[in-house]
C-alpha cells in the first residue's frame, strides 16, 4: 500500500486535483489546484510549500561517521563544518553515480544524509569495521521545503532562528512555537529557500503554523509538477530521469559518472581513497565521454517547424521526462532527458546528455520535436546550467 506522509492529514483535503503520484512508496501531490501554474509562480514570486517527506533520510552517528561518509561520497567530508550542508554524489567502484543528495553535519559525529533511492545497505556494508551506526529515519523525520523570495520572512515570523545570518547550504536549530526543528538553507528549486526537518509527530502542527502565518506572504502548497519546472530551470538533476543510478542500470552504457553529469565539482580526487576514486581519476585524466548540458530551443526554428502545418508553436504545459534524441547534422550526438517551457525565462529549455565533442557552450544542435505525428527537428543552443539563478538564492 502507498502511504501518506506525516502531513497527509493536511495535504489530502487540499488536493483538489486528486492527482497523486508515487514517491518512494508515499503519495505525493502532483498539484493541489486543478492546474499547477500558480504553484510554480509561488516558487519564483512568493513562497511555495512542498512536502518532501518521502526523501530517504539516514542518520549516521559515531566517532567514525566522518570516515565512513568520506569513504562513500565524492565530496571531502572532512571539510564539512558542523551545521554545514554538502550536496554530493556517490559512486560504485567503476566511478558511476549511484545517487545524489545532501549531507548535513548535525554535530561533530552526527550526519544526516538525504537520498533519492534507498541506500541503507550500501551505507551499512561500507561501515564494516567502523564505530558508526546507520539508522533509516525516513519515516520518523518529516520534511517541508519552503521555497521562494518570501520564504525567509515567513520563517522569521514563526521561528527563533537567526535567518539573516544563515548562509546558503548551512543549517540551524530552532523552535517554531514549542516544536523543535532543523532549518537548512537548501532546496530543489534554485531559489531562496529553506528545508525544515521535524519529528513526524509534530508535522501537522508545523504545517498549520506555516500556512497560517504564511498567508500574508502568499504561501502556496505546491506539488511535484511545479517542482519539476523549477528544478529544470535550476539545472538540478532527477535520478532515475536525468540519469540511471548505477545499481539500477541493466547495461553499463546506461550508467553515468559524476563528470558526465556535470557534477565533476563534487568529486574531490585529492581527498584520498573513496569508492570509485581509481576509476574517476582515470576518467578525469582522459576527460568524460559525455556531458550533461542545458539546451535552449531556438524560438524561430521551433516556430518554423510548426508553421509547416499552419500551427503556432505548441509549448509543453508540463515538464516532460522522456528521452528525446539530439542531433548535429544527421548524426545523433546525444539525448535530452527532461525539458519544459520556462515561464520565468520565456524560453523552452531542456537538460541533455551530449557527446563531449558537441558539448561546448554556445554550440548549435537540433532536438527532435514531434509535430502532427511527424518527427521534426528544432535548433537548440548548448548552454551551461543553471538556466535561472537569482541573486537572492545566495544573498
Amino acid at each position, binding site marked *: 500500500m502507498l502511504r501518506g506522509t506525516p502531513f497527509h492529514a493536511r495535504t489530502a483535503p487540499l488536493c483538489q486535483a486528486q492527482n497523486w503520484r508515487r514517491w518512494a512508496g508515499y503519495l505525493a501531490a502532483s498539484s493541489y489546484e*486543478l*492546474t499547477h501554474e500558480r504553484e510554480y509562480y509561488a516558487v*519564483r*514570486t512568493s513562497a511555495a510549500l512542498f512536502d518532501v517527506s518521502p526523501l530517504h533520510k539516514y542518520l549516521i552517528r559515531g566517532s567514525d561517521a566522518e570516515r565512513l561518509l568520506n569513504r562513500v561520497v565524492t565530496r571531502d567530508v572532512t571539510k564539512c563544518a558542523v551545521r554545514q550542508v554538502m550536496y554530493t554524489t556517490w559512486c560504485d567502484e567503476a566511478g558511476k553515480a549511484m545517487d545524489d543528495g545532501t549531507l548535513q553535519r548535525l554535530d561533530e559525529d552526527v550526519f544526516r544524509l538525504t537520498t533519492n533511492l534507498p541506500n541503507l545497505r550500501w551505507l551499512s556494508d561500507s561501515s564494516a569495521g567502523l564505530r558508526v551506526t546507520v539508522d533509516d529515519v525516513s519515516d520518523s523525520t518529516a520534511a517541508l521545503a519552503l521555497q521562494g523570495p518570501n520564504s525567509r520572512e515567513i520563517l522569521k515570523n514563526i521561528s527563533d532562528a537567526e535567518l539573516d545570518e544563515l548562509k546558503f547550504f548551512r543549517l540551524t536549530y530552532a523552535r517554531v512555537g514549542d516544536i523543535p526543528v532543523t532549518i537548512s538553507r537548501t532546496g530543489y528549486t534554485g531559489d531562496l529557500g529553506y528545508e525544515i526537518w521535524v519529528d513526524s509527530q509534530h508535522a501537522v502542527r508545523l504545517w498549520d503554523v506555516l500556512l497560517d502565518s504564511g498567508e*500574508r*506572504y502568499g504561501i502556496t502548497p505546491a506539488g511535484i509538477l511545479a517542482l519539476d519546472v523549477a528544478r529544470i530551470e535550476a539545472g538540478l538533476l532527477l535520478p532515475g530521469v536525468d540519469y540511471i543510478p548505477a545499481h539500477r542500470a541493466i547495461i553499463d552504457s546506461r550508467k553515468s559518472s559524476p563528470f558526465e553529469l556535470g557534477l565533476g565539482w563534487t568529486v574531490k580526487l585529492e581527498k584520498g581513497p573513496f569508492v570509485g576514486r581509481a576509476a574517476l581519476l582515470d576518467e578525469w585524466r582522459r576527460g568524460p565521454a559525455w556531458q550533461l548540458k542545458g539546451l535552449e530551443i531556438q524560438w524561430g526554428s521551433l516556430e518554423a517547424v510548426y508553421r509547416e502545418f499552419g500551427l503556432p508553436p505548441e509549448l509543453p504545459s508540463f515538464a516532460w521526462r522522456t528521452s528525446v534524441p539530439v542531433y548535429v547534422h544527421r548524426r545523433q550526438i546525444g539525448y535530452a532527458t527532461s525539458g519544459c*517551457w520556462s515561464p*520565468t*525565462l*520565456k524560453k523552452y529549455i531542456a537538460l541533455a546528455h551530449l557527446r563531449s565533442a558537441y558539448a561546448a557552450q554556445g554550440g548549435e544542435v537540433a532536438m527532435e520535436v514531434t509535430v502532427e505525428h511527424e518527427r521534426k527537428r528544432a535548433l537548440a543552443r548548448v548552454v551551461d546550467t543553471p538556466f535561472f539563478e537569482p541573486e537572492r538564492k545566495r544573498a
Partner: protein
Amino acid sequence: MGAAKRYDAVIIGGGHNGLVNAAYLARAGKRVLVLERRHVLGGSTVTEEIYPGFKYSVLSYVVSLLRPEIIRELELPKHGLEILPLESTLTPLPDGDYLVRWADHDQTRRELYRHSPRDADTYDDFGKLMYQLAFAVKPILGIVPPDPTSLSPRDLLSLARIGKHFQNLGAEQFYALCKLLTMSSADFLDEWFEYEPLKATMSASGIIGTFLGPRSPGTAYVLLHHYMGEIDGVFRAWGFPRGGAGAVADAIAAAAGRLGAEIRTEAAVQQVIVKNGRAVGVALDSGEEIRARKVVSAVDPKLTFLKLVEPRELPSDFVDAIRRYKIRGSSGKVNLALDDLPNLTCLPGRGPHLRGAISISPSIGYLERAYDDAKYGNFSRRPYMDIIIPSMIDPGMAPPGKHVMSIFVQYAPFALEGGWNDERREAFGDVVIDTLSEYAPNLKDLILHRWVVTPWDMQEEYGLTEGNIFHGELALHQLLFMRPAPRWADYRTPLKNLYQCGSGTHPGGGISGTSGRLAALEMLRDS
C-alpha cells in the same frame, strides 16, 4: 550634456513604446536619448507608490499583447520582467449569483453548464474560432501596414502576402472575420451565446478604451484585438506583471540602458526644432536644446502634430486628418489601498476567485445604459468595471496582509458636461465605490486610501490627449494604413526625420510595444 552633443535619435516620451523604440535603435548601435516629462518612466505603463507601502498600477494594469518577439529580442526576463497568470474572470450578479470562468477548462465548463448547457458547448467552439482568427490576424499586427492605394513594390508585395495569408484562412473563418470587422460585439456574441452575463462580460473586451457601447458596430473588432494577446504560446491569456505595470517599463528601460540608450526623466519636450523642413532636434521646457539626426514621438498624434510641431511645417491636409482623428477618452481608473480583502456577497470569503479579474458586467443592457450616460456627457451612474486585486497575485504590491485594488471604469467621458474638477472627480469615485459596494458590502470599511484618475487627469498628468488610453480609438476607420492618417501609417511623418512610434500608430493600443519596435526598424531602413 549640452547642445553640442548630437544623438542619432531623440525619443519624446518614456512610455513603453518610446523605450522599446530606444532599445531597438540602441541595439543597432545608434546613440539615442529618451526624454520623459514626468519623474518616473513608463507613461501609462507605470507603478506609483502614492500611499506608502501600497503600489498602484496607476493606469494600465494587465499585460497580454506585449509581443513575444520583443520579450525575446530585448531579453526582458533577464532585465526583470515577470508575468504572473491572471487565472479567472468572475462576474458577480445583482441577484446574488455569479459567473466564473476559471483557468481549468472542466471547471469553467461545469460553471457555464450551470447557467446554460448550450453555452457550455458553444464556448469551446467559439474559443477555437477566435484562436484561429487570432493566429490568422496576428501576423498583420507585426508588420508595417501596407497601403492598398500605393503602387510601391514594397506595399504591393506586402499586400500580396496578406492576400495569400487570407486565402489559407478558409471560407468559414474569413466570413467570421468580416463579421468581426463590421458588427457590434453584442450582435456578434448573440450569434453564439444565450446567457446574458456571459455575453456581457465577453462583450466588455469590445468596448474597453472606446467611446462606443457594446451595441455599436465596430466593437467586435476590439474584441478580437483583445484576443490577440498571448502568453507562453497561449492566446487570450492575460497576466499581471510582477511589481505592477511599471515593472514592464522598468524592464524595457533596463534593457535599453544596457544596450546603451540614455534616458532622462523630468525632461519635458516643448517643441520639435525644424530647420529647412527637417526635424533636427527638440527644445525642452527648460530652454535646453538637444540636437539629433532623427526625432521620434512616442506621444499621441494630436500632441505630436498639433502641439509639438508648428502646424505650418506640416501639409494642411495632414493637419486636418490629425484634427479629425478620434481620440475621445471614455474611461477612468480608481486605485484603492485596502486594509483587508473585500467580501463578495456572491462568493463570500477569501478564495481563488479574488486572484483573477472581477467584472461588473451583469448584462449587455447594463453596459449599454452605462454608455448612454456617457453619450450625453455624464459619467455612468452604474459603470462597467474591470477589477483586479494585484496584491493577491503579487503579495509585494502591498504590505503583508494588506491589499491594493485596481478598478478600470467605463464610462467616464473626457468631455464631461460642465467639465472635470476635484468635486466631479470625487463624485465619480463615489459612484464607483457605491456600485462596487453593492457586490462587496464591506468594501467601504476597508479603504485606507483612494486614488481616482479621470480622463482629464490622464491628459493633464500623463499626457494622454483627451484621456484616451489607446492614443486614439481602435475604430476601423483609424486602424491599419489609416492609423493615424492615410499615407502616414508607416511610422514616418510628412516632416522629414520626424517619426512616430506611439499607440496612435499601427497596431495601437495595449502594452504591446509593436509600434515602438516597427518604428525603430523603419528608422533603421532609412539610415
